[in-house]
């Protein structure tokens, strides 16, 4: 247990003291949590913020693959929690982007490997290391792993697909954020929620076959951070182990770039929410 935390000069300065903890969560699996966590944390680091992305999906580690560092994993989050490795031994420094670190999940099948005290200790230690942002990539579901990932969060990215089960599960996870996070339990300011709609297909929205962004916003009623279109670039990026935000020629890469800029306070109009002109002509004459 870490009761005594060393106070440094830097810590006394409220501006630099606060590392923000952001959970990327969704309830439902396969909606793009890890893709989003990888792109988002890479984007934050590209803006010069010291960022670490933590994989909370114990037993089903995948962030390492998406980030392209799977062959450099030696120690993981569970090793650090169980004092089998130091934090610095487990942190993997990204080879492309400065200021970016990955803390991989363990492949253990032990469900109880994570515990709140351990997670808190790791987060505190990361704060001591001057990280600006700590991004927690949540596992799917609403079980222990997902609850650990969101418990200490200051802000949350709710990744939602325009599809009924995803929207419903997002609402569930919002309920958990509002009742079972540390902020909720301690009566502090609530976790700041951001909606991130992924796999959006404007053409199918137009033809009435897909929930629109307005529909989803009506139902979930939380602020929209961004919309990422369904894009072949996402699969290509995961094939290559390079977060899609690095592919700035792609629609998805640009959309994530907007997401990060908006998160950091910049105002950017939504893109990729309308059918492109060529697409429309193709539909009419194709």
């Amino acid at each position: 247990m870490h009761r005594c935390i060393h106070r440094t000069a830097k810590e006394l300065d409220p501006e630099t003291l606060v590392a923000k903890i952001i959970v990327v969560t969704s309830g439902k699996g396969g909606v793009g949590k890890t893709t989003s966590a990888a792109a988002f944390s890479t984007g934050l680091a590209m803006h010069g913020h010291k960022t670490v992305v933590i994989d909370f999906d114990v037993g089903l580690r995948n962030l390492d693959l998406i980030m392209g560092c799977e062959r450099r994993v030696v120690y993981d989050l569970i090793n650090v929690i169980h004092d089998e490795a130091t934090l610095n031994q487990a942190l993997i420094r990204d080879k492309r982007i400065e200021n970016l670190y990955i803390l991989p999940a363990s492949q253990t099948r032990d469900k109880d490997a994570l515990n709140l005290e351990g997670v808190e200790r790791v987060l505190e230690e990361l704060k001591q290391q001057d990280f600006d942002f700590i991004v927690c990539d949540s596992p799917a579901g609403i079980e222990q792993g997902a609850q650990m990932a969101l418990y200490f969060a200051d802000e949350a990215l709710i990744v939602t697909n325009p599809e009924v089960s995803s929207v419903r599960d997002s609402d569930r996870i919002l309920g958990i954020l509002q009742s079972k996070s540390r902020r909720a339990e301690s009566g502090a300011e609530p976790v700041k929620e951001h909606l991130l709609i992924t796999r959006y297909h404007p053409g199918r929205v137009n033809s009435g076959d897909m929930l629109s962004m307005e529909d989803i916003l009506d139902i979930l009623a939380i602020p929209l951070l961004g919309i990422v279109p369904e894009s072949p670039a996402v699969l290509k990026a995961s094939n290559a182990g390079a977060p899609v935000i690095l592919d700035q020629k792609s629609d998805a890469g640009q959309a994530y770039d907007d997401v990060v800029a908006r998160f950091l306070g910049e105002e950017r109009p939504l893109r990729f929410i309308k059918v492109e002109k060529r697409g429309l002509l193709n539909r009419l004459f194709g």
Partner: protein
Amino acid sequence: MGLFDLFRKQKTTSAQLAKERLQIVISHERAARGSPDYLPRLKQDILEVIRRYHAIADEQVELRVDKDGGREVLELNVTLGNEADGTH
């Protein structure tokens, strides 16, 4: 134009359907969210007691917790249905 509008109105898109279904299910789930875990069991017990006297279906008992200002109110609605419509 009028004819065109007529065609459009008749058709409910699948996305509209999705939205309506979601609104209903989510409002139910939100209402149940703050309520105690024992509610489903309490409902079963109440059903059992009522069934000693009157045959009813599960959905004829509605049980929920409402927040009224600072107070929590347990609301119980039992519909007995009428004999003629064969609900029991």
